[in-house]
């Protein structure tokens, strides 16, 4: 999350239309933005489209960027891009996110804590479970939860990114996490119970 040492210079040059300088910022943030889009949309292909659109929109709007945290500003654009992509895919059934459920489960990954093939298989299964659970949550709560738990933003940063009040952030994270907990308890079964026991 550290700021790139040359980031202010890259930003200044990007404001003047220097596409090469902006690509320096793309290189730094593309993984974070892609992962946000992937968790939001659940489809690698949709996430790619949304990520690309987010960077294009960011470059076109960078002249309006003034001093605030660039990462938060970029994530606001990426979030909007995800909403646009969801609307686009809803309006085109052929592009439905549901078609990519199989990909989603492969796309999500968890750290390799298990050494046996059974443990690794469980991790993959849990990864798929988490992504499906996220997909069940309302997008407003989902994005707040992803920004908090997956991307590591604090509540104040999330409020800035989503342009909502701190109280709303707190409420959305609570409801989203409660729904996720219910999903995991319902669908996780023994798998989740064993993970919970590991954490204890």
């Amino acid at each position: 999350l550290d700021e790139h040492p040359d980031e202010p210079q890259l930003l200044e040059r990007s404001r003047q239309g220097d596409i090469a300088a902006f690509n320096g910022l793309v290189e730094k943030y593309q993984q974070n933005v892609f992962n946000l889009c992937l968790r939001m949309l659940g489809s690698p292909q949709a996430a790619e489209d949304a990520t690309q659109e987010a960077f294009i929109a960011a470059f076109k709007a960078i002249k309006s960027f003034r001093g605030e945290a660039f990462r938060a500003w970029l994530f606001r654009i990426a979030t909007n891009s995800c909403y646009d992509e969801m609307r686009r895919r809803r309006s085109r059934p052929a592009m439905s996110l549901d078609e990519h459920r199989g990909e989603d489960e492969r796309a999500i990954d968890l750290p390799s804590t298990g050494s046996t093939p059974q443990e690794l298989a469980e991790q993959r299964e849990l990864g798929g479970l988490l992504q499906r659970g996220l997909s069940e949550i309302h997008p407003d709560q989902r994005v707040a939860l992803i920004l908090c738990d997956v991307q590591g933003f604090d509540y104040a940063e999330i409020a800035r990114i989503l342009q909502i009040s701190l109280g709303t952030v707190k409420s959305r994270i609570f409801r989203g996490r409660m729904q996720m907990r219910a999903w995991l308890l319902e669908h996780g079964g023994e798998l989740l119970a064993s993970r919970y026991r590991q954490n204890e």
Partner: protein
Amino acid sequence: MYPFDKHNRMRQDLCAYIDGELSPDAIRKLEAHLESCAQCTQTLEELRATSTQLSAITPIEAPRSFALTHEMVGDTARQPERRPGAAYATGLRYAAAGLAVALAVVIFVDGADLGSDNSSTSTQDSALQELDSPATTDIGATAESVTADQTADAGGDDDSQFRSGEGQSAQGAVPQATSAPAPAGSPEEDAIAPSSNAVGGADDGAADAESTQPAEDSSAPEQADSANDSDTLWTVAEILLAALLAGTLIAIGWTWFSRRRTQI
């Protein structure tokens, strides 16, 4: 048992408690509630485990580079930043160029007219001197008619001087500027020469002189006044144009300097 609303309110603080977003006072109240509420304690642990699972999701590598190309962003790339004052910069440049040309024209035309004005003024002065001297010596009607004739000739020379000046200005600025003192001297000679001619030609021009005398007497000072007014107007116009040009150049310089500063 806690009232339902209080239990529900405390429950809503569980996530903020996990995330370290509660105030010390709220933490104290929640922990007091948790000590006596098994349901909230269990929910807290499940929510904590859920958060841990989500946090454990490993970021995956981007499948490709999302670097932008010029085709993707169209005209946005490589365009200089349009600062709030940038829209005026081009206009200012054109305005400065226009003002510079206008100033050059004014100076040129004024320089041409100055020579003519000096000539005409000196001619008028000499003519007036000629008018004064017969009046003071009072040599009679013939002398008056002769003087009137001189005035008439001097007035005619005024016209010829203007025409001469116009002709010179049409020939170009350099000859006019370099020969500026010459027209100032020549009208005096012209003014004297017609006087001798006028004496010789008094019979021929007496009638005309008598008929034109009152008009010529009043027109000569008016021409001098109008020439002075014209000079004043030109001077004011020059000052205004110079001030506008200087202001415009300063504005352009400031714009250029600001742009350089933002590029650093």
